[in-house]
């Protein structure tokens, strides 16, 4: 399922980590985010949160402040100390100015006071995902793609690409560790899954492979789609 709302066209999936000690709230957040198309994983305390972030590098963190043992703000601070820039939305049951300031100062990007409407939670998560300015130049191995100029170089040699090839390459470059399914590619590059047949995707992937030359960096994952790999 695709994430609803205004996210950049090339976002195909978002992995959200929920950190909340209260079971019912944790389950509610999981349910709500999953229904919106996020891949969700959840933990109940700060220690597990740090371990899970280390392990699976989520795209966004939904973090409760009042956690047992390791406080949410401490988790925030540790992540920032490590230099991790992932967007963090903190949830707090305290709405005093001092509490909100403490959350932002600890490195959170935004806060939400409990109880909140799911609409607002989702809108804030989307806003956080949009916030990071997309890099102008994307690179994978010796392939360098200039987003603005729609031009690609490999090993310093300029390669001419068709517009669809360039879009497909950008989608793959922006989702470096993910498999892009044919449906996702159609939705993102062609604008509509019904606009062309899945075979069109295979055709353009092979054009792109040919244009980029050897060694090939686009791998076919059987039955799923394509991804970049060396």
């Amino acid at each position: 399922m695709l994430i609803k709302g205004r996210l950049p066209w090339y976002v195909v999936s978002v992995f959200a980590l929920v950190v909340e000690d209260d079971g019912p709230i944790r389950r509610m957040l999981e349910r709500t985010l999953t229904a919106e198309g996020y891949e969700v994983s959840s933990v109940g305390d700060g220690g597990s949160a740090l371990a899970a972030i280390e392990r699976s590098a989520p795209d966004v963190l939904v973090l409760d402040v009042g956690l047992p043992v390791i406080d949410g703000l401490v988790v925030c601070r540790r992540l920032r100390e490590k230099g991790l820039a992932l967007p963090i939305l903190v949830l707090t049951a305290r709405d005093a100015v001092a509490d909100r300031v403490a959350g932002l100062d600890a490195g959170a990007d935004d806060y939400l006071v409990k109880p909140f409407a799911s609409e607002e939670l989702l809108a804030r998560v989307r806003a956080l995902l949009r916030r990071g300015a997309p890099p102008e130049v994307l690179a994978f191995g010796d392939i360098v793609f200039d987003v603005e100029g729609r031009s690609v170089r490999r090993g310093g040699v300029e390669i001419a690409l068709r517009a669809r090839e360039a879009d497909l390459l950008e989608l793959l470059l922006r989702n470096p560790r993910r498999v892009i399914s044919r449906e996702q590619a159609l939705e993102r590059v062609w604008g509509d899954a019904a606009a062309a047949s899945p075979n069109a995707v295979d055709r353009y992937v092979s054009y792109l492979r040919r244009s980029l030359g050897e060694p090939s960096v686009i791998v076919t994952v059987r039955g799923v789609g394509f991804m970049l790999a060396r």
Partner: protein
Amino acid sequence: MIPRSLRLRAIVAASLAVLVALVIVGAGIDLLVARHLHRSLDRSLRGRAVEVAQLSASAPALLTTPGSLDTAIGGEQVSVEVLDRRGRIVARSLGLGGRVLPVQPLWRAVITTGSGRYAATRLGGDDLRVYVAPLADAGGPAAGGAVVVAASTHDLNATLADVHLVVLLAALAAAAAGAVAVALLMRSALRPLGQLAGAAAEIERTGDPARRLPEPDANDEVGRLARTLNEMLGALERSRDAERRFLADASHELRTPLTALIGNIDYLARHGADPGLVEELEHDSRRLARLADDLLALSREESSPPPDEDVRLDEIARESEGVDVVAPEPVTVRGDRAALERALANLVENAHRHGRGRVVVEAGKANGVVRLTVEDEGAGVTGEEAEQVFGRFQRGRDAGPGSGLGLALVRATAERHGGRAYAEGSRFTIELPDLRDVSESPATTAVHREKGLPS
């Protein structure tokens, strides 16, 4: 307004007291001086009478010589008249001029009784003191007659009037001095009171509970009053802080079940219901209801009157479900049955939720106290945690479905019954005074604290 009137009243009272005291003293002095002066005058008159009597006896001829009776004694003019036995004037001092001393009834009485008499009389607008003495029947024109000696009391009265004036002036001066002294004293004594009133008005105006009254350095009544009032303000501030904290905690705790409930309702509105969601919604609602119940119970527990029914703790213990009960003998306390049942149920629930293994409920009495204990086979709580678990909104590390108020309620119930609640490891105890000791419950509690029982 009140300090001013207090000051005025003190001044008036002090002045009146001084005035009354001095008037009494003055009246005493007046009395003494008047008596002294009168006696002294009487002695002079008597002495003169004796002289004239001696003259009449020894030299009767000299008696009638003009001027012989005009001797001044002590600078005071004393008039003398000598009468014969028929009351006719034989001789008289020149000072009298043509006047006759009005002593007719008196001289007759003196001659009849043969003893001298004093009297007061008036002559020509002058107050006189008169002494009439009989003369011996020893020859001479006045034999068997009487001698009348008289002196004006004008000087004496003038002296007394002076004394009156002096005493009165002294009394007024002293009263004025007293008023001034009291006014000064009151002013210095009332100044700190005025400052207290000003500071209290400031507290009333700002409503700032952290403010305190200025404490004067002096250890007098006003200083003690200021200290006592400040202690009172401190106690009020603490209780207000506690209430505010409770409200903040309560609203914080209400947010948790509300967050889940609102989120799940939003989900329901967007995606429709499924059995899992319905179960979640039911769970959220129950949790909210439970929290509301516990908050209400806690506030009731803290404002309820002391319990007054006889309650069998062993019976309550036996009613617990899913536990082993040890209650070999009847154990009765003065208590509130519903509250004690709820307290035990909370302890049992706590043991089931956070503990492990078998749960044993025990009711018994020893050393004048009654104990209701719930023990499981888990690790339990120790040290600081054993104290914290009885606080409000304290939940175990695993954050179970409780409201966080269960053990706070247990403690509130125990304290309302004059007892206490404490935890040692996995053993949670409600300790209450025995029925026969219930009237001395605070003392009982104190004794057991001194014995160092774990808390």
